[in-house]
């Protein structure tokens, strides 16, 4: 069966700087992969590349069987990304946001309700506009949007940051369930104890390259 992610000597450039300098990575279906590495190593870039947001300058890059070097839009809608930013509309309420993002990928109303429930946002908060939420509450909302999407490949950039103890447990449970259900998960994180416990494999990103 084709690997979920297959990168060979991938180079990616932002503003003339090689954010990825020959990355090789091979991820199988159902894995929970932890990307660790120093600041500026290229973790975020790697995730954005896999999501089809960052063009491939050189090398071979296949995600979910699509050649994203040729057409990086091909893989979209099958992957879900939680980046450093949340991608929420500040003036809309929590439920409006989750509903909108769910709708863009044709998720059912139940999925939406379920994911709100799952992230503990179904109470008073559901009707509060994002602009009046705390940092962690926003992060939870972003996660709820991601959960509602039921993606085949989950890309999470420091998902634990800002979440409280309960939120972290919810998140880890969600990710375990997802991978059990056959989805693949890639997590970039600096919280090695926590994320390490979650991951089925750990690779190190350094200087735009992937080790291990």
């Amino acid at each position: 069966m084709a690997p979920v992610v297959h990168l060979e000597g991938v180079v990616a450039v932002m503003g003339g700087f090689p954010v990825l300098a020959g990355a090789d990575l091979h991820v199988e279906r159902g894995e929970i992969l932890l990307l660790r590495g120093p600041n500026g190593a290229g973790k975020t870039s790697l995730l954005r590349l896999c999501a089809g947001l960052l063009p491939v300058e050189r090398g071979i890059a296949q995600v979910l069987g699509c050649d994203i070097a040729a057409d990086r839009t091909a893989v979209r809608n099958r992957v879900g990304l939680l980046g450093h930013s949340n991608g929420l509309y500040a003036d809309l309420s929590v439920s409006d946001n989750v509903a909108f993002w769910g709708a863009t990928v044709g998720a059912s109303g139940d999925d939406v309700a379920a994911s709100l429930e799952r992230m503990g946002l179904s109470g008073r908060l559901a009707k509060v506009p994002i602009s009046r939420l705390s940092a962690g509450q926003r992060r939870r909302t972003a996660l709820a949007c991601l959960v509602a999407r039921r993606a085949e490949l989950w890309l999470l950039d420091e998902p634990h940051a800002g979440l409280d103890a309960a939120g972290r447990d919810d998140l880890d449970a969600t990710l375990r369930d997802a991978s059990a259900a056959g989805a693949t998960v890639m997590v970039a994180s600096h919280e090695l104890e926590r994320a390490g416990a979650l991951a089925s494999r750990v690779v190190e990103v350094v200087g735009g390259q992937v080790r291990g």
Partner: protein
Amino acid sequence: MSTWRIARLIAAKDLRIELRSRVVTNQVLPFAALVMVMFAFALDNDNVLTRVAPGLVWLATLFSMLVLVQRAFAVENADGALDALQVAGVRPGGIFLGKALALGAQLAVLEIVLLLMAVVLYQAQVAASGAILLIITFVAATTGLAFVGTLYGGLAAGAKGRETLLPLLMLPVVAPVLIGATRATEAAFGTNGATSSEGWPWIGLLTLFAVLFGVGGTLAFGSLIDE
């Protein structure tokens, strides 16, 4: 999901945001009104005003439109929503149509207000025969403006210093609309003895323009927005 359903989804979202934040109603409308008044001040020069009223209506529309477009994409950029839309695989054509739809709706409201102001402030009269002409002009022009605004708004959205790149890109392109709409409106108002028959050729130009940018945008928006 079909492009059209996406468009409706996006448009609904944008209008809901407007509903919650009331930015257009509380701020852009008054702004547009102010612009008209300012013109009146600056040009208050023996009855120049009535003669140039049509031009002013459209100038005011353009400037307010700059604000609207900026706002429309500020919303998408503030927290990386535009990226998220792309990852979600939302068809760019859908995004384009949706945002154009919402923008058009807001523009329409704006123009009606401005037109009424022109009638009141500048004593512009609409010749009975011109009424239909006027309406068609507005529909055609608004559609065109909405498309252009969305197209260039999307292009500038990625760039740094976007709040200033936008006007540079947009103004020369909308110039034809400005001219066309102005002349057509003059014809409708019967300004400087223009008769409404003179207006029709302009409608042609406006429609052509709207169609061009509508099609162009729907097809090309994808490659314009992705950075």
